[in-house]
């Protein structure tokens, strides 16, 4: 009886989870119909995370599984967050250069050179190219 100790999820639990998933789907559709402004995305994502957790914990039976599998899954999830956050540190803070500075880089440099020529300051900065 090698498999005797495997957890068997009762049918009732599985159906309850399914009903919960359908209900959450209805809620997310309903929430999307009425415009909640800046709350739209957080609400939809929170509901999706709850639904995904239900599937992982009950349907995939991670709750009663070898703890090592939960560690494997959570490490994967952590790296998704690392991937997303570190990418956004770049892309979300990129200035749109042509919108912030009028004129070309050459013109800007010429202007800076002119300012330096007018007021070299205490320690003269070597002129840039």
């Amino acid at each position, binding site marked *: 009886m090698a498999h005797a100790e*495997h957890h068997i999820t009762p049918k009732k639990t599985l159906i309850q989870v399914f009903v919960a998933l359908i209900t959450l789907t209805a809620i997310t559709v309903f929430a*999307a119909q009425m415009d909640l402004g800046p709350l739209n995305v957080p609400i939809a994502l929170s509901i999706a995370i709850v639904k995904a957790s239900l599937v992982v914990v009950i349907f995939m039976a991670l709750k009663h599984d*070898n703890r090592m599998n939960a560690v494997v899954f959570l490490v994967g999830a952590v790296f998704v967050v690392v*991937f*997303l956050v570190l990418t956004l540190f770049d892309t979300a803070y990129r200035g749109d250069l042509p919108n912030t500075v009028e004129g070309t880089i050459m013109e800007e440099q010429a202007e800076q050179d002119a300012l330096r020529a007018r007021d070299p300051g205490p320690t003269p900065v070597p002129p840039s190219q």
Partner: protein
Amino acid sequence: MAEASTVTADRPKHLHPHFVSSEQQFDAAKMGMWLFLVTEILLFSGLFVAYTVFRIWYPEVFSHSAELLDWRLGGLNTIVLLASSLTVAMGVHYAQTNERKKLVRALILTICFAAVFMIVKYFEYTGKFAHGVFPGVNFDPHGTAGGHDYAAYNIPFAAQFFSIYFVMTGVHGLHVLIGIGLFSWIVIRANKGHFSSEYYTPVEITGLYWHLVDIIWIFLFPLLYLI
């Protein structure tokens, strides 16, 4: 070693020689599947990151373009996939309780749900293609359908939204097709009586794969269709 050799006499047929016990073989297969699922999650996370970056850059383009996607079809597919996840979980339950006929029935239902999902996706895709909504450089929306003037959606960066939509749902749909293939194979084996409470590893790990495909859709549906 002497102890191991005495065990070989009553080793079950499904047990490979390099495993000590069925339990060890089952745990190894399952952890292998979880590791594979993590690589799958990271594959999709690349697409989710692309979505997030472009959505943060062009939020109004994304919410405007999403109006062209029919949330009713997406919602129907969500329900269909959730139901297929239920039938897979039921299938594992029936494998564990040695109910072969019910296992076969649950898996056939799963395949049917998966087929419905792909049929809905087919109509969604062809509906978009008919109005010039293609991924990439061929993006050229025109005509009217469902109260939408497609030409009005030909705005800068709408092509990026639809490219991301097609790639994300396309890669996901490919996984659904692979799932249909896997479950067809499992159904044939289940029907032959290959699985029991002693040995149902293929049912279990294919089920895990299927639930992951469901989870991906749980995120795709609100991100692409709703918000």
